[in-house]
Protein backbone atom coordinates (compact mmCIF):
# COMPACT_ATOMS: atom_id res chain seq x y z
CA UNK A 1 0.00 0.00 0.00
CA UNK A 2 1.20 3.50 -0.81
CA UNK A 3 0.27 6.40 1.42
CA UNK A 4 0.31 9.33 -0.97
CA UNK A 5 0.34 12.01 1.69
CA UNK A 6 2.69 12.45 4.63
CA UNK A 7 1.17 13.63 7.92
CA UNK A 8 1.40 17.37 8.51
CA UNK A 9 2.54 18.35 12.02
CA UNK A 10 -0.18 20.02 14.10
CA UNK A 11 0.15 21.24 17.67
CA UNK A 12 -2.59 20.74 20.25
CA UNK A 13 -3.27 24.36 21.21
CA UNK A 14 -6.11 23.63 23.60
CA UNK A 15 -8.33 20.82 24.80
CA UNK A 16 -11.86 20.81 26.10
CA UNK A 17 -13.44 17.91 27.95
CA UNK A 18 -16.87 17.29 26.41
CA UNK A 19 -17.80 14.30 28.60
CA UNK A 20 -15.99 11.79 30.80
CA UNK A 21 -14.53 10.05 27.71
CA UNK A 22 -14.73 12.64 24.92
CA UNK A 23 -12.43 15.57 24.23
CA UNK A 24 -12.37 18.31 21.61
CA UNK A 25 -8.83 19.20 20.58
CA UNK A 26 -7.92 22.44 18.84
CA UNK A 27 -5.13 21.72 16.39
CA UNK A 28 -2.90 24.51 14.99
CA UNK A 29 -0.52 23.83 12.09
CA UNK A 30 3.08 23.52 13.23
CA UNK A 31 4.27 23.60 9.61
CA UNK A 32 2.51 23.54 6.26
CA UNK A 33 -1.26 23.19 6.93
CA UNK A 34 -3.47 20.65 5.22
CA UNK A 35 -6.04 21.87 2.69
CA UNK A 36 -9.19 23.49 4.04
CA UNK A 37 -11.94 21.03 4.98
CA UNK A 38 -15.62 21.06 4.11
CA UNK A 39 -18.39 19.94 6.52
CA UNK A 40 -18.62 16.17 6.73
CA UNK A 41 -15.00 15.44 5.81
CA UNK A 42 -12.54 13.64 8.07
CA UNK A 43 -8.83 13.65 8.73
CA UNK A 44 -6.43 10.91 9.76
CA UNK A 45 -4.91 11.81 13.12
CA UNK A 46 -1.57 10.23 13.95
CA UNK A 47 -0.44 9.80 17.53
CA UNK A 48 3.25 9.27 16.87
CA UNK A 49 4.48 5.87 17.87
CA UNK A 50 0.98 4.56 18.57
CA UNK A 51 -1.11 4.74 15.43
CA UNK A 52 -3.43 6.63 13.15
CA UNK A 53 -7.24 6.91 13.18
CA UNK A 54 -9.95 8.65 11.14
CA UNK A 55 -11.74 11.50 12.95
CA UNK A 56 -14.39 13.78 11.47
CA UNK A 57 -13.64 17.46 11.66
CA UNK A 58 -16.01 19.02 14.18
CA UNK A 59 -15.30 22.65 13.35
CA UNK A 60 -13.01 25.46 12.41
CA UNK A 61 -11.16 26.86 15.41
CA UNK A 62 -9.33 29.72 13.68
CA UNK A 63 -8.05 30.64 10.22
CA UNK A 64 -6.11 27.40 9.89
CA UNK A 65 -6.97 25.59 13.12
CA UNK A 66 -9.14 22.50 13.29
CA UNK A 67 -11.48 21.34 16.04
CA UNK A 68 -11.55 17.55 16.27
CA UNK A 69 -13.70 15.69 18.76
CA UNK A 70 -12.43 12.32 19.89
CA UNK A 71 -13.87 9.62 22.11
CA UNK A 72 -11.45 7.42 24.02
CA UNK A 73 -12.24 3.87 22.94
CA UNK A 74 -8.84 2.33 22.14
CA UNK A 75 -5.10 2.79 22.12
CA UNK A 76 -4.86 5.72 19.68
CA UNK A 77 -7.96 7.55 20.87
CA UNK A 78 -6.88 7.14 24.50
CA UNK A 79 -3.52 8.71 23.62
CA UNK A 80 -5.12 11.58 21.68
CA UNK A 81 -7.68 12.27 24.39
CA UNK A 82 -4.94 12.41 27.00
CA UNK A 83 -2.75 14.81 25.02
CA UNK A 84 -1.85 18.04 26.79
CA UNK A 85 -1.64 21.38 25.02
CA UNK A 86 1.67 21.78 23.22
CA UNK A 87 1.94 18.19 22.04
CA UNK A 88 2.41 17.61 18.30
CA UNK A 89 0.47 15.06 16.28
CA UNK A 90 0.27 14.21 12.58
CA UNK A 91 -2.71 15.14 10.41
CA UNK A 92 -3.56 13.88 6.92
CA UNK A 93 -6.49 14.96 4.85
CA UNK A 94 -9.10 16.24 4.62
CA UNK A 95 -10.71 13.22 3.02
CA UNK A 96 -14.07 12.15 1.71
CA UNK A 97 -17.40 13.53 0.67
CA UNK A 98 -19.25 16.40 2.30
CA UNK A 99 -22.72 17.05 3.71
CA UNK A 100 -23.32 19.55 0.90
CA UNK A 101 -25.76 21.37 3.19
CA UNK A 102 -25.87 24.33 0.79
CA UNK A 103 -27.79 22.06 -1.58
CA UNK A 104 -30.70 22.34 0.90
CA UNK A 105 -30.97 26.11 0.42
CA UNK A 106 -34.62 27.13 0.17
CA UNK A 107 -35.70 23.99 2.01
CA UNK A 108 -35.91 22.83 5.62
CA UNK A 109 -32.64 21.38 6.90
CA UNK A 110 -33.03 18.59 9.46
CA UNK A 111 -29.95 17.31 11.28
CA UNK A 112 -30.28 14.19 13.42
CA UNK A 113 -27.36 13.33 15.69
CA UNK A 114 -26.80 10.32 17.90
CA UNK A 115 -24.11 10.50 20.59
CA UNK A 116 -20.77 11.72 19.26
CA UNK A 117 -22.41 11.82 15.81
CA UNK A 118 -23.10 15.45 16.60
CA UNK A 119 -19.40 16.22 16.00
CA UNK A 120 -19.39 15.58 12.21
CA UNK A 121 -22.72 17.43 11.89
CA UNK A 122 -21.55 20.51 13.76
CA UNK A 123 -19.70 22.13 10.81
CA UNK A 124 -22.80 21.70 8.60
CA UNK A 125 -24.99 23.21 11.31
CA UNK A 126 -22.65 26.16 11.81
CA UNK A 127 -22.41 26.72 8.05
CA UNK A 128 -26.22 26.72 7.77
CA UNK A 129 -26.59 29.08 10.73
CA UNK A 130 -24.02 31.46 9.25
CA UNK A 131 -26.29 31.73 6.19
CA UNK A 132 -29.52 31.22 8.07
CA UNK A 133 -31.57 33.27 5.58
CA UNK A 134 -30.90 30.70 2.85
CA UNK A 135 -32.90 28.00 4.63
CA UNK A 136 -36.47 27.76 5.80
CA UNK A 137 -36.25 25.87 9.11
CA UNK A 138 -33.04 24.49 10.59
CA UNK A 139 -33.93 21.67 12.98
CA UNK A 140 -31.44 19.74 15.10
CA UNK A 141 -32.53 16.56 16.89
CA UNK A 142 -30.00 15.09 19.31
CA UNK A 143 -30.05 11.71 21.00
CA UNK A 144 -27.60 11.01 23.81
CA UNK A 145 -27.07 8.24 26.32
CA UNK A 146 -27.60 10.52 29.31
CA UNK A 147 -27.51 14.26 30.04
CA UNK A 148 -23.89 13.91 31.20
CA UNK A 149 -22.90 12.36 27.88
CA UNK A 150 -24.25 15.13 25.70
CA UNK A 151 -21.44 16.67 23.62
CA UNK A 152 -21.38 20.41 22.79
CA UNK A 153 -24.02 20.96 25.49
CA UNK A 154 -22.57 24.41 26.15
CA UNK A 155 -23.38 25.50 22.58
CA UNK A 156 -27.04 24.52 22.36
CA UNK A 157 -28.42 27.85 23.56
CA UNK A 158 -26.24 29.78 21.11
CA UNK A 159 -27.46 27.57 18.26
CA UNK A 160 -31.07 28.26 19.29
CA UNK A 161 -30.36 31.99 19.38
CA UNK A 162 -28.88 31.72 15.87
CA UNK A 163 -32.12 30.29 14.53
CA UNK A 164 -31.92 26.54 15.01
CA UNK A 165 -34.76 24.56 16.58
CA UNK A 166 -32.91 22.19 18.90
CA UNK A 167 -34.53 19.19 20.58
CA UNK A 168 -32.62 16.81 22.82
CA UNK A 169 -33.58 13.39 24.10
CA UNK A 170 -31.64 10.97 26.28
CA UNK A 171 -31.87 7.24 26.83
CA UNK A 172 -31.72 7.45 30.60
CA UNK A 173 -32.18 10.21 33.14
CA UNK A 174 -33.06 10.80 36.75
CA UNK A 175 -35.83 13.12 37.91
CA UNK A 176 -33.54 16.17 37.79
CA UNK A 177 -33.57 16.08 33.95
CA UNK A 178 -36.21 18.39 32.55
CA UNK A 179 -35.93 17.28 28.93
CA UNK A 180 -37.09 14.44 26.72
CA UNK A 181 -36.38 10.78 27.47
CA UNK A 182 -36.65 8.27 24.64
CA UNK A 183 -35.13 7.41 21.28
CA UNK A 184 -34.33 10.22 18.85
CA UNK A 185 -36.80 8.94 16.25
CA UNK A 186 -39.63 9.77 18.67
CA UNK A 187 -38.78 13.46 18.27
CA UNK A 188 -39.47 13.39 14.52
CA UNK A 189 -43.23 13.41 15.01
CA UNK A 190 -42.96 16.48 17.23
CA UNK A 191 -41.15 18.65 14.68
CA UNK A 192 -44.07 19.37 12.35
CA UNK A 193 -41.86 18.23 9.48
CA UNK A 194 -42.67 19.18 5.88
CA UNK A 195 -41.29 15.99 4.26
CA UNK A 196 -41.29 16.98 0.58
CA UNK A 197 -39.36 20.16 1.37
CA UNK A 198 -36.85 18.77 3.85
CA UNK A 199 -33.26 17.58 3.48
CA UNK A 200 -32.01 15.37 6.32
CA UNK A 201 -28.44 14.81 7.47
CA UNK A 202 -27.97 11.94 9.93
CA UNK A 203 -24.93 10.88 11.93
CA UNK A 204 -24.67 8.41 14.78
CA UNK A 205 -24.40 4.68 15.40
CA UNK A 206 -25.37 2.83 12.23
CA UNK A 207 -28.47 1.22 13.77
CA UNK A 208 -29.67 4.65 14.89
CA UNK A 209 -29.14 6.03 11.37
CA UNK A 210 -31.05 3.14 9.76
CA UNK A 211 -33.99 3.59 12.13
CA UNK A 212 -33.99 7.35 11.68
CA UNK A 213 -33.89 7.05 7.89
CA UNK A 214 -36.77 4.55 7.99
CA UNK A 215 -38.79 6.87 10.22
CA UNK A 216 -38.21 9.73 7.78
CA UNK A 217 -39.29 7.55 4.85
CA UNK A 218 -42.40 6.60 6.83
CA UNK A 219 -43.45 10.24 7.17
CA UNK A 220 -43.00 10.82 3.44
CA UNK A 221 -39.41 11.87 2.84
CA UNK A 222 -37.59 10.47 -0.18
CA UNK A 223 -34.40 8.42 0.17
CA UNK A 224 -32.66 10.92 -2.11
CA UNK A 225 -33.26 13.70 0.45
CA UNK A 226 -31.57 11.76 3.27
CA UNK A 227 -27.79 11.66 3.77
CA UNK A 228 -25.86 9.55 6.28
CA UNK A 229 -22.28 9.62 7.49
CA UNK A 230 -20.97 6.06 7.33
CA UNK A 231 -17.93 4.67 9.01
CA UNK A 232 -15.83 1.64 8.24
CA UNK A 233 -12.19 0.84 8.83
CA UNK A 234 -10.66 3.87 7.12
CA UNK A 235 -6.88 3.49 6.92
CA UNK A 236 -5.20 4.98 3.85
CA UNK A 237 -7.76 7.75 3.26
CA UNK A 238 -7.06 7.71 -0.48
CA UNK A 239 -9.02 4.65 -1.70
CA UNK A 240 -5.97 2.48 -2.13
CA UNK A 241 -5.98 -0.04 0.70
CA UNK A 242 -9.61 -1.23 0.49
CA UNK A 243 -10.14 -1.57 4.24
CA UNK A 244 -13.15 0.73 4.21
CA UNK A 245 -15.02 -1.08 1.46
CA UNK A 246 -18.81 -1.20 1.72
CA UNK A 247 -20.17 -2.99 -1.34
CA UNK A 248 -19.10 -0.92 -4.35
CA UNK A 249 -18.02 2.01 -2.16
CA UNK A 250 -14.66 2.83 -0.65
CA UNK A 251 -15.92 5.02 2.15
CA UNK A 252 -12.74 7.08 2.59
CA UNK A 253 -13.33 8.37 -0.96
CA UNK A 254 -17.02 7.71 -1.72
CA UNK A 255 -18.09 8.51 1.84
CA UNK A 256 -18.33 9.18 4.67
CA UNK A 257 -21.41 11.12 3.54
CA UNK A 258 -23.60 8.92 1.36
CA UNK A 259 -27.14 9.35 0.10
CA UNK A 260 -29.58 6.93 1.72
CA UNK A 261 -30.67 6.02 -1.79
CA UNK A 262 -27.26 4.40 -2.24
CA UNK A 263 -26.68 3.33 1.36
CA UNK A 264 -30.01 1.62 2.09
CA UNK A 265 -29.30 -1.73 0.38
CA UNK A 266 -25.69 -1.73 1.59
CA UNK A 267 -26.58 -1.33 5.25
CA UNK A 268 -28.34 -4.68 5.19
CA UNK A 269 -25.05 -6.35 4.21
CA UNK A 270 -23.29 -8.05 7.07
CA UNK A 271 -19.77 -6.74 7.60
CA UNK A 272 -17.10 -9.33 6.74
Amino acid at each position, binding site marked *: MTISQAPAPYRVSSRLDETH*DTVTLTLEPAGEPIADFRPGQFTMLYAFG*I*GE*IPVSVSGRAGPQALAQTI*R*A*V*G*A*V*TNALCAMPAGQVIGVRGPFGTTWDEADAAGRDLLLVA*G*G*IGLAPLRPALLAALSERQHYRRVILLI*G*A*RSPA*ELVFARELDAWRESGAEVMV*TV*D*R*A*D*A*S*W*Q*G*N*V*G*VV*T*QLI*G*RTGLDPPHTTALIC*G*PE*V*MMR*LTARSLLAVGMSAASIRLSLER*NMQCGVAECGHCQLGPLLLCRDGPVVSYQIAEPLLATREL
Partner: protein
Amino acid sequence: MSGVSVSELSQHAFASGLTAGQLERLAALAVSTDIPAGCRLFDEGGPAARLWLVRTGRIALDLEVPGRERIIVETLGPGDELGLSWLTPAAQWQFGAIAQLPVSAFELSSGALIDLCEADHELGYQLTRRLLDTAITRLQAARIRILDLYAAPAPAAGATP
Protein backbone atom coordinates in the same frame (compact mmCIF):
# COMPACT_ATOMS: atom_id res chain seq x y z
CA MET B 1 -62.26 20.80 32.60
CA SER B 2 -64.50 21.48 29.64
CA GLY B 3 -66.13 19.60 26.78
CA VAL B 4 -64.32 18.87 23.53
CA SER B 5 -65.58 19.80 20.07
CA VAL B 6 -65.18 17.56 17.06
CA SER B 7 -62.92 20.09 15.36
CA GLU B 8 -60.63 20.26 18.42
CA LEU B 9 -60.41 16.48 18.67
CA SER B 10 -59.76 16.09 14.95
CA GLN B 11 -56.51 18.09 15.37
CA HIS B 12 -54.97 15.30 17.45
CA ALA B 13 -52.94 12.61 15.67
CA PHE B 14 -54.91 9.90 17.51
CA ALA B 15 -58.10 11.03 15.75
CA SER B 16 -56.56 11.10 12.28
CA GLY B 17 -58.61 9.04 9.82
CA LEU B 18 -61.77 8.75 11.96
CA THR B 19 -65.08 9.53 10.29
CA ALA B 20 -67.16 12.53 11.34
CA GLY B 21 -69.58 10.23 13.18
CA GLN B 22 -66.77 8.42 14.99
CA LEU B 23 -65.18 11.73 15.97
CA GLU B 24 -68.51 12.91 17.33
CA ARG B 25 -68.99 9.81 19.48
CA LEU B 26 -65.42 10.02 20.78
CA ALA B 27 -65.60 13.76 21.44
CA ALA B 28 -68.75 13.23 23.51
CA LEU B 29 -66.65 11.18 25.98
CA ALA B 30 -63.69 13.55 26.17
CA VAL B 31 -63.03 16.50 28.41
CA SER B 32 -60.34 19.11 27.90
CA THR B 33 -57.95 19.42 30.81
CA ASP B 34 -55.00 21.61 31.76
CA ILE B 35 -52.38 20.18 34.09
CA PRO B 36 -49.83 22.48 35.74
CA ALA B 37 -46.12 21.66 35.68
CA GLY B 38 -45.14 19.52 38.63
CA CYS B 39 -48.58 17.95 39.00
CA ARG B 40 -48.49 14.16 39.41
CA LEU B 41 -51.17 12.51 37.31
CA PHE B 42 -50.81 9.04 38.81
CA ASP B 43 -48.49 6.79 40.78
CA GLU B 44 -47.15 3.35 40.00
CA GLY B 45 -49.54 0.67 41.25
CA GLY B 46 -52.67 2.83 41.21
CA PRO B 47 -55.84 1.82 39.35
CA ALA B 48 -55.51 2.62 35.64
CA ALA B 49 -58.76 4.08 34.37
CA ARG B 50 -57.98 7.02 32.08
CA LEU B 51 -56.49 7.88 28.71
CA TRP B 52 -55.06 11.30 27.90
CA LEU B 53 -54.42 12.58 24.40
CA VAL B 54 -51.62 15.09 24.90
CA ARG B 55 -51.98 18.35 22.95
CA THR B 56 -49.15 20.43 24.39
CA GLY B 57 -46.53 20.15 27.13
CA ARG B 58 -44.46 17.24 28.37
CA ILE B 59 -45.14 14.37 30.77
CA ALA B 60 -42.51 12.12 32.34
CA LEU B 61 -43.23 8.47 33.04
CA ASP B 62 -41.16 7.51 36.04
CA LEU B 63 -40.34 4.77 38.46
CA GLU B 64 -39.17 4.74 42.06
CA VAL B 65 -36.03 2.59 42.33
CA PRO B 66 -34.85 1.81 45.89
CA GLY B 67 -31.38 3.16 46.55
CA ARG B 68 -31.40 5.39 43.47
CA GLU B 69 -32.94 8.62 42.31
CA ARG B 70 -36.39 8.33 40.75
CA ILE B 71 -35.79 7.23 37.14
CA ILE B 72 -37.56 8.76 34.15
CA VAL B 73 -38.29 5.92 31.74
CA GLU B 74 -39.82 7.98 28.94
CA THR B 75 -41.32 11.37 28.22
CA LEU B 76 -44.47 12.02 26.19
CA GLY B 77 -45.37 15.14 24.28
CA PRO B 78 -47.79 16.67 21.78
CA GLY B 79 -49.58 14.04 19.72
CA ASP B 80 -48.84 11.24 22.18
CA GLU B 81 -51.24 9.12 24.23
CA LEU B 82 -50.73 8.77 27.96
CA GLY B 83 -52.23 5.84 29.87
CA LEU B 84 -52.40 2.42 28.19
CA SER B 85 -52.29 0.20 31.28
CA TRP B 86 -56.09 -0.09 31.49
CA LEU B 87 -55.88 -2.21 28.33
CA THR B 88 -54.46 -5.09 30.39
CA PRO B 89 -56.61 -7.19 32.76
CA ALA B 90 -54.72 -5.89 35.82
CA ALA B 91 -55.64 -2.28 34.90
CA GLN B 92 -52.90 -0.97 37.14
CA TRP B 93 -50.42 1.83 36.31
CA GLN B 94 -46.98 0.32 35.71
CA PHE B 95 -45.22 3.70 36.03
CA GLY B 96 -45.93 7.05 37.60
CA ALA B 97 -46.64 10.16 35.51
CA ILE B 98 -45.80 13.78 36.27
CA ALA B 99 -46.19 16.91 34.15
CA GLN B 100 -42.71 18.32 33.45
CA LEU B 101 -44.20 21.28 31.59
CA PRO B 102 -47.75 22.64 31.69
CA VAL B 103 -49.89 20.12 29.80
CA SER B 104 -53.06 20.52 27.80
CA ALA B 105 -54.82 17.23 27.00
CA PHE B 106 -58.08 15.52 26.16
CA GLU B 107 -59.02 13.13 28.96
CA LEU B 108 -61.20 10.05 28.52
CA SER B 109 -62.47 7.48 31.00
CA SER B 110 -61.36 3.96 30.11
CA GLY B 111 -64.71 2.55 31.23
CA ALA B 112 -66.61 4.82 28.85
CA LEU B 113 -64.14 4.01 26.06
CA ILE B 114 -64.58 0.28 26.57
CA ASP B 115 -68.38 0.66 26.58
CA LEU B 116 -68.15 2.64 23.33
CA CYS B 117 -65.99 -0.02 21.73
CA GLU B 118 -68.44 -2.76 22.83
CA ALA B 119 -71.34 -0.83 21.33
CA ASP B 120 -69.57 0.19 18.10
CA HIS B 121 -67.18 -2.49 16.93
CA GLU B 122 -65.97 -0.53 13.90
CA LEU B 123 -64.93 2.39 16.10
CA GLY B 124 -63.55 -0.10 18.61
CA TYR B 125 -61.41 -1.59 15.82
CA GLN B 126 -60.15 1.86 14.82
CA LEU B 127 -59.26 2.80 18.40
CA THR B 128 -57.64 -0.57 19.08
CA ARG B 129 -55.45 -0.21 15.98
CA ARG B 130 -54.27 3.19 17.14
CA LEU B 131 -53.53 2.01 20.67
CA LEU B 132 -51.75 -1.08 19.31
CA ASP B 133 -49.63 1.11 17.05
CA THR B 134 -48.64 3.21 20.05
CA ALA B 135 -47.84 0.11 22.13
CA ILE B 136 -45.72 -1.42 19.34
CA THR B 137 -43.86 1.84 18.70
CA ARG B 138 -43.02 2.11 22.41
CA LEU B 139 -41.99 -1.55 22.55
CA GLN B 140 -39.65 -1.07 19.60
CA ALA B 141 -38.22 2.09 21.14
CA ALA B 142 -37.64 0.26 24.42
CA ARG B 143 -35.83 -2.54 22.57
CA ILE B 144 -33.60 -0.02 20.81
CA ARG B 145 -32.73 1.61 24.12
CA ILE B 146 -31.81 -1.79 25.55
CA LEU B 147 -29.12 -1.94 22.85
CA ASP B 148 -27.43 1.04 24.53
CA LEU B 149 -26.28 2.26 21.12
CA TYR B 150 -24.40 5.28 22.43
CA ALA B 151 -22.23 3.29 24.82
CA ALA B 152 -18.52 3.12 24.03
CA PRO B 153 -18.02 0.26 21.58
CA ALA B 154 -15.95 -2.70 22.72
CA PRO B 155 -12.77 -2.68 20.59
CA ALA B 156 -12.80 -5.41 17.95
CA ALA B 157 -9.96 -7.93 18.03
CA GLY B 158 -6.87 -6.35 16.52
CA ALA B 159 -8.46 -2.91 16.29
CA THR B 160 -6.49 0.12 17.45
CA PRO B 161 -8.85 3.12 17.48
